[in-house]
């Protein structure tokens, strides 16, 4: 082991060592200060700016998407309102139509009923009139046969018929 030999010399700088160390330090420091760090700082700043720009772009896209969504939703809600309005209209119209149809049907029915009533009435009247004539003739013949006499006088004949009919009608009314 020769560790001891010249140990102190390790800590005694040589002139040339100092010179070279200084030269190298100055070169390295100049390189770092003037070239390396500014270059990389520029790159890093640019990257940061770019990332920020991208973030801004993404935010813009997001805002755009939000606006589109909002617009879409607004459209959707108006469409929904419109649809419900149309549905209401249709419902109203339908009820209107139904009411119309019902009223028309009712009026028709009333008319038909009235017509029927009227024709019944007239037939009734007719029947009454014809019945009156026939009953007169029949009664006259019957009475002639019963009385055995011929009622020559027309006046008597007709007054008799009328009286009979009135009696019938009177008994009829009671």
């Amino acid at each position: 082991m020769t560790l001891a030999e010249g140990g102190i010399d390790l800590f005694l700088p040589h002139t040339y060592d100092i010179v070279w160390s200084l030269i190298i330090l100055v070169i390295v420091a100049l390189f770092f200060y003037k070239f390396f760090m500014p270059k990389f700082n520029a790159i890093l700043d640019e990257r940061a700016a770019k990332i920020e720009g991208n973030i801004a772009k993404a935010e813009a896209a997001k805002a755009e998407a939000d606006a589109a969504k909002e617009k879409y939703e607004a459209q959707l809600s108006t469409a929904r309102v419109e649809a419900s309005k149309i549905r209401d209209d249709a419902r109203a119209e339908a009820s209107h139509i139904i009411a119309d149809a019902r009223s028309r049907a009712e009026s028709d029915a009333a008319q038909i009923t009235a017509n029927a009533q009227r024709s019944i009435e007239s037939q009734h009247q007719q029947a009454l009139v014809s019945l009156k004539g026939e009953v007169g003739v029949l009664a006259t013949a019957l009475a002639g046969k019963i009385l055995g006499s011929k009622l020559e006088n027309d006046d008597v004949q007709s007054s008799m018929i009328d009286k009979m009919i009135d009696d019938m009608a009177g008994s009829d009314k009671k």
Partner: protein
Amino acid sequence: MVEAMGMLFAAESPDLPTVNDFLPPEILFQGTPFALNRIILIRIVATIILLIVLGITASRAKLIPGRWQSIVETGIDFVRESVVYQVMGETRGKRYVPMISTLFFTIFVFNLCGIIPGMNMAANATVVMPLVFAVWVLIQYWVTAVREKGLWGFVRDECFPKGVPWPVYILLAPIQLCELILIRPASLTIRLFANMVSGHLLVATALAFAQYWVIDATNKLAGIPIGALWFVFGFVLTLFEAFVAFLQAYVFAILSTVYISMSYPED
């Protein structure tokens, strides 16, 4: 180390590394202030590699980083966020980021030279390179202190802190002044330098023993297993040295930041 690896002839004892490894002979421009020895040559090569690699990375730097660029950016980010901003905050720390980055990257690469085959010697393994870094930090924190507090304000705050009974100042003031001027740079220097020296000695010792037992020992039966164990030990130590290279760069950077931030008035 080189001697240890290069020695293929039988030897009496393992060719252990010595401190003379750190005092290599001058090989170029002997006797001038620009003399070169092995360690300085390693340092220059490491500097050139550092400048070329980082220079190419920086000049080719793109917005969307490739694999290598993101590794470098992770390093830059690490220094800025985990070291500088963590210690002194963003507003104060901004101006020191280039300095601390310089220190971190340079020291890291210089340390790594200690485990690169062929170099096998950290470029920080003479006392001067760490000393130069430390003196830079010393100048920086004094300059910061003078700018922020004024010279007297800084010395008063550090050497005569408030709320201490005055007799204590007799003891405290010289110690603190010594700390400010001498101990801080000295501890930075010694920590880095001694780590590199001890790391080299450890790895080289393990590998020297491995070589001795495998190649030189006459008893091959015992020699090869023991040598293999020594080799594994050397391999693990090499990995440990890689970790130490990073750790020392980190510690140097964070202590420099702490010293600078201690020059600011407390907020």
